[in-house]
């Protein structure tokens, strides 16, 4: 090992020690942001219709709101075992099969405690088990399989209708 490589190894060690220490002191590596949007139909100059998402400020009952959670890794290290949890907002009903997030396994919960993949949640009714309906799902969980690299962003999204 020559002196130059020794120098780089030393710098890398310092940098690593610095970020590890900073993280341990409570600095958050993932910045989480939630937005509410609604779809709006727009017509371009050719008369072609398309849907765009616009911020949802005030919505009427029956409106479908697109909730998007973005997780940004602001550290210089990868974050592992990234899990995003989001309750279905009060007064809203989850749109069945609307939750997605690239590279994540999605599970659902009726009570926020026990989670299961779609179609495996059951409700006991009149002594028998039946599959849970979308309107009974109160929590969604996205478990990302891969690490979130520095500067990378993970997206979790679902749709819910205002009751």
């Amino acid at each position, binding site marked *: 090992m020559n002196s130059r490589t020794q120098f780089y190894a030393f710098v890398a060690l310092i940098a690593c020690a610095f970020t590890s220490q900073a993280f*341990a002191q409570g600095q958050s590596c993932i910045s989480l942001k939630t937005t509410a949007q609604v779809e709006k139909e727009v017509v371009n100059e050719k008369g072609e219709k398309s849907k765009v998402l616009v911020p949802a400020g005030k919505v009427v009952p029956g409106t479908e709101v697109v909730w998007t959670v973005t997780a940004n890794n602001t550290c210089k290290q990868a974050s592992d075992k990234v899990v995003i*949890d989001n309750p279905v907002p009060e007064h809203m009903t989850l749109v069945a099969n609307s939750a997605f997030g690239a590279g994540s396994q999605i599970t659902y919960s009726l009570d926020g405690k026990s989670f299961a993949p779609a179609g495996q949640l059951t409700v006991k009714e009149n002594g028998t088990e039946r599959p849970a309906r979308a309107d009974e799902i109160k929590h969604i969980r996205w478990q990302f399989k891969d690490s979130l690299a520095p500067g990378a962003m993970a997206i979790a999204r679902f749709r819910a209708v205002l009751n």
Partner: protein
Amino acid sequence: MFSARLLVGLGVVSLLGLWAPEARAVGVPAGTSIDNTAQVTYTVGSVSATATSNTATVTVAEILDVVVTLQTPSVPVIAGAAQQELLYRVTNTGNGPETFRLQMTSVIAGDEFDPVAAAPSIYFDTDASGDLSPGDVPYVAGSNDPVLAADAFVTVVVVNDIPAGVVDGNRGFSRLLADARTGTGAPGTTYAGQGAGGTDAVVGTSGADGEATGQYLVAGVALSAVQTQAVADQFGGTRPLPGARIDYTFVVSATGTGSASGAVFTNDIPAYTTYVPGSLRLNSAALSDATDADAGDFSAAPVARVSVQLGTLTQASGSQTVQFAVTIN
């Protein structure tokens, strides 16, 4: 797996426009804040961490929706009848308190006559009697417009006079209209900041106005009775001698499109005759002379008289045959 799920999600959504309020009676109250906060857990190296997101909020806008429903089936009337009532219900099917303006009209195509709006022509059924009564307050546009909470309703009486000269079977329509004072328009029309609590007001599927049309039906009914009699004297002949018996038969029938409710047949026993006890019959069935559960009775005072309760008679009821007998004094 992922792409299939995404496609399903988008497929469902593409069917829905921005404003696609369902025809539900009432949703989350206008002005309610819907909050959402997400949470993330992760590890960096061997250290676990948690973070929460900002709280994103949407505010529930006010839907302007109203439904007017007719509470009175076709109202039977006769020519020249005054103050004929139609009962309506105006329901706020939006999700916030709203003031509604009421209007009525009786000039409507498709009927045989135009009812004449009484003055005043719209009353609140203040005493909830289901009809026009002295305590009912007249509606004055702009003065006592009904203010209805979400899902609340008010019952309204519309009053018309029936012109003379209409004939049996004629129909006359009358309509009550209600519209939201905040505004009406195509569904989705937005009145920014004009909803309950300063939220937006958005016209719902009803267009924020509603109407219902009632009907008066000229339903005349005429009751007629055809009388026949048979005399039997005590000598085997048919002479009306003292002691002879007279059997009377009355055939009562209703004609017309209406119905005669509480029809009662009465007949005074002719002078110089005496009722034959137990001789009263309705459609061949014997009726007791006493005032009791059966339909007929005979009373000796103050006037000797037979009476038979015929109930509600319509043309479809067919004829009713009443029989009784007297003897000549």
